[in-house]
């Protein structure tokens, strides 16, 4: 089960009302490489992981991503909370406002709603961990683009924290991938169609 902690993982600061920045940052809430996708991806993949390290890492990283989702929501909420209708129209957020007022909703930067097809849960642990490593890199890139777009130094500070976490998670998933290769006793080579691992002689350790 999960419990809630009545605190953020990181003090998400916002300097001033900025609906235009909110429109970009919200993609890390409900976009393809956002925190909701990350969290749900890892938490749903963990059931079919064969080794204890992988079950633990997916549970813990999936949980940390939920905390990141709350941080992103806090940024967006505070960036639009005091925005006037004129501010919202100027920022191009009028479409969002028509559907959600200033409520939080899972959309990407262009307003497209979150869909489960952003994520995969394939059952093959090697495949799933590769997906997760790619996901962490995609999220890292997104945070870099958001940092470029940010004109609020306080928001940038929080974006930098989230950016760093993607790098750490990528590292942990890379270690999980190595542990899975050890578990399967396979050589660390790329799988090619028609390639038969039985034909490769085992290497003495």
């Amino acid at each position, binding site marked *: 089960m999960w*419990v*809630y902690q009545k605190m953020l993982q990181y003090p998400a600061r916002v300097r001033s009302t900025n609906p235009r920045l909110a429109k970009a940052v919200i993609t890390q809430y409900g976009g393809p490489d956002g925190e909701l996708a990350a969290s749900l991806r890892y938490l749903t993949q963990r059931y079919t992981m064969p080794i204890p*390290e992988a079950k633990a890492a997916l549970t813990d990283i999936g949980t*940390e991503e939920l905390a990141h989702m*709350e941080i992103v929501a806090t940024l967006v909420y505070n960036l639009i909370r005091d925005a006037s209708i004129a501010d919202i129209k100027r920022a191009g957020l009028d479409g969002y406002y028509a559907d959600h007022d200033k409520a939080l909703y899972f959309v990407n930067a262009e307003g497209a709603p979150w869909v489960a097809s952003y994520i995969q849960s394939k059952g093959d642990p090697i495949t799933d961990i590769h997906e997760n490593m790619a996901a962490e890199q995609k999220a890292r890139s997104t945070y870099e683009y958001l940092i470029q777009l940010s004109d609020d130094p*306080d928001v940038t500070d929080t974006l930098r924290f989230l950016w760093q976490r993607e790098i750490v998670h990528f590292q942990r998933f890379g*270690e999980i991938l190595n542990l899975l290769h050890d578990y399967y006793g396979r050589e660390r080579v790329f799988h090619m169609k028609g390639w038969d691992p039985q034909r490769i002689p085992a290497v003495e350790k």
Partner: protein
Amino acid sequence: MDARQKEMLLRLMELQFAATELNLYLDTHPDDTRALQEFRMRSQELMSAKMEYERIYGPLLNFGLGMTGRTWQWIQDPWPWEVNWRRS
């Protein structure tokens, strides 16, 4: 939220961040005794900082895992997204 509560929360965030980072590291390095020692230390510090905070400001965790006083402080504002963390 007064300055003291914010200061205590920031300390909790720091300690919990250290514990989170070590937790993830230990997930893939369960035999690293130095990291385990460090985790145990941070975890202990975190627990005592949490207890100190909860004694004054009410439970940090729901479902019975936080410390509850004579009044139901859980519903007290502000919630995490409402705290103004801006440096003054």
